[in-house]
């Protein structure tokens, strides 16, 4: 179970001005649940994703985050990864010259090592990854290319999903993975997420659009604004947002 309590986070901009981004976030995600976070730009959704994954440009001023009882905030990013935290990036970075499969195998074996598991050899890994590549719709040329280099936006997102399938994390954050995807890719993402739902693995899905929820049925939808979760509800909340936008949440009408 992921439990976030009273999380407050600041960021310092280039002029050294301190700006609060998260102002007391509370969230509980039970094993097997899919939670969706929606909200206007600048509400703190991506910050929350990054803070959970351990990006260190933020200043955490208050609150706790635990994953299955372990203090997540005390771990560095690679330790969190070994504890099952996976972030599908909104803008996956390119790493020129580093072979995509070499990267993924190194990542997998690095995590296995932290879990005291033996490394997967090259042949087994290749067999595994080829199966998963079919699922995400990447052809085998992506085995030999550099990590995300020259990939289209959609290919980058597919590569993120490929990594998710191979690394088999237990807590998955999808940070606007659906942005910029065509309908086929969107359905692929949903199919992969659904295939990984096993009653134990949990998901935090950050999105702007209701359409992803046509394919993934969330347990809870949260609306975030001004650094706080303003409202939580079931799937109907997403439809309401789609219709009315976010402005009705402001103006003090939020409970």
């Amino acid at each position, binding site marked *: 179970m992921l439990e976030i309590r009273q999380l407050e986070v600041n960021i310092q901009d280039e002029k050294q001005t301190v700006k609060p981004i998260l102002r007391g976030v509370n969230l509980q995600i039970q094993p097997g649940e899919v939670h969706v976070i929606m909200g206007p730009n600048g509400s703190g959704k991506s910050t929350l994703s990054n803070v959970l994954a*351990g*990006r260190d440009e933020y200043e955490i001023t208050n609150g706790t985050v635990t994953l299955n009882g372990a203090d997540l905030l005390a771990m560095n*990013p*690679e330790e969190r990864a070994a504890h099952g935290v996976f972030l599908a990036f909104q803008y996956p970075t390119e790493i020129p010259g*580093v072979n995509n499969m070499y990267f993924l195998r190194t990542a997998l074996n690095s995590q296995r090592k932290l879990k005291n598991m033996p490394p997967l050899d090259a042949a087994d890994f290749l067999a595994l990854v080829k199966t998963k590549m079919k699922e995400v719709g990447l052809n085998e040329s992506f085995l030999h290319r550099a990590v995300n280099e020259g990939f289209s936006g959609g290919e980058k997102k597919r590569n993120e999903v490929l990594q998710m399938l191979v690394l088999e994390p237990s807590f998955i954050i999808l940070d606007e993975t659906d942005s910029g995807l065509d309908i086929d890719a969107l359905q692929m993402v949903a199919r992969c997420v659904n295939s990984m739902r096993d009653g134990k693995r949990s998901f935090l899905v950050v999105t702007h659009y209701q359409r992803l929820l046509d394919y993934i049925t969330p347990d809870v939808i949260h609306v975030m604004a001004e650094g706080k979760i303003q409202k939580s509800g079931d799937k109907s909340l997403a439809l309401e947002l789609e219709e009315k936008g976010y402005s009705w949440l402001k103006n003090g009408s939020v409970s």
Partner: protein
Amino acid sequence: MENKIIKEVVDKQYPYGFETKIESDTIAAGLNEDVIRMISARKNEPEFMLAWRLKAYQHWLTMTPPEWAHLHHEPIDYQNIIYYSAPKSVKDGPKSLDEVDPKLLETYNKLGIPLHEQGRLAGVAVDAVFDSISVATTFKAKLAEAGVIFCPFSEAVHKYPELIEKYLGTVVPYRDNYFAALNSAVFSDGSFVYIPKGVRCPMELSTYFRINEAKTGQFERTLIIADEGSYVSYLEGCTAPMRDENQLHAAVVELVAMDNAQIKYSTVQNWYPGDEEGRGGIYNFVTKRGQCRGVNSKISWTQIETGSAITWKYPSVILQGDNSIGEFYSVALTNNYQQADTGTKMIHIGKNTRSTIISKGISAGHGQNAYRGLVRMLPGAKNARNYTQCDSLLLSDTCGAHTFPYIEVKNPTAHVEHEASTSKIGEDQLFYCRQRGLKTEDAISMIVNGFCKQVFNELPMEFAVEAQKLLEVSLEGSVG
């Protein structure tokens, strides 16, 4: 924070810092005509060699050290350098490996170069230069069978004086520059290679250089001649023990490629870089140049420069023969207070000549890294082409990268392309790798290796592995 971790990674200690206790035959410091006569006499050189050395010395006296490079160091006291030192135990010259001082062999073993095994296993003939004298040469028989000459320079002077007299100083004349003149006057030894017409050298030729004697300047001279239609790949690797004083290293390498001949010259340079405060380290002032004399000839330089306090080095190609090709692939890494001013010159003389320059500079700590390159298209270089790409990667806020490209085009049909980029190792890249479970140091090394991939691809297999390891060691302690 990342900075701290990166610094830890970059600050690993130089692992080759030990000194072999071998009695040396060393002369007093200082340079004058008598010293040059003595060096020549000890080597029993023919008269033409002494005459050439003395001319070089006289010319050197009229020159001043170059000051145009982006390098800062105290002036070098050339009278405080010992110009000749040979390990005493090999004075009489070993006939085989068994006769080589075991301590010397032990040194190589510590460096991971077991002369006995590695040479044979890797199919590499090793001409090991220890300080100034070559102590062991393997695989002579196999090479002799192919007609290839690969021997210490001093031996070649005796055995093949006509080749030496014909080619020595024809690519890098002693007048060329301050350090080339100095080298010409005092060089002690080095390697000589001759590949006869139509012969493809049956193995990669490899020389490991090593500076051992304190305060000994090392002045090697290498001459490689590839006759018509021949091919040779030559590997040069360097490591030096730790020491506090700066040591001067001023080598000269000359390559000659005749019609349809190819020379591939690869270097991994790992001289002692000095400590974290910038104390000590090798001053590396090297002149390397190849001449594509014949039609369709090709000379390719690949260098991995991770060592030395100062690197001043521009492996160049004179593209004289029509359709000849020159290549320069370089990775230069400067950490702590290391400085590098390195690049190449591609001089296009012949028609349809082509050159490629790929330069990757990595700066960490307070390191300063300059690319300096000249592409010159002369009036006869009809349809000549050049492509230059130079990329810099910065790993800290205190390091520097500089690019000085010089382009001169005197033929309207010639094409020159230049691309350059400077990037900081991305927090995004690091975080991405770490989020996937990689440790910071593994992530840095992966990103840096990826950055250098284009150049590593040009290295022979066994060297590529060594180069990657070297990069890891050299980086230990470096991003911010």
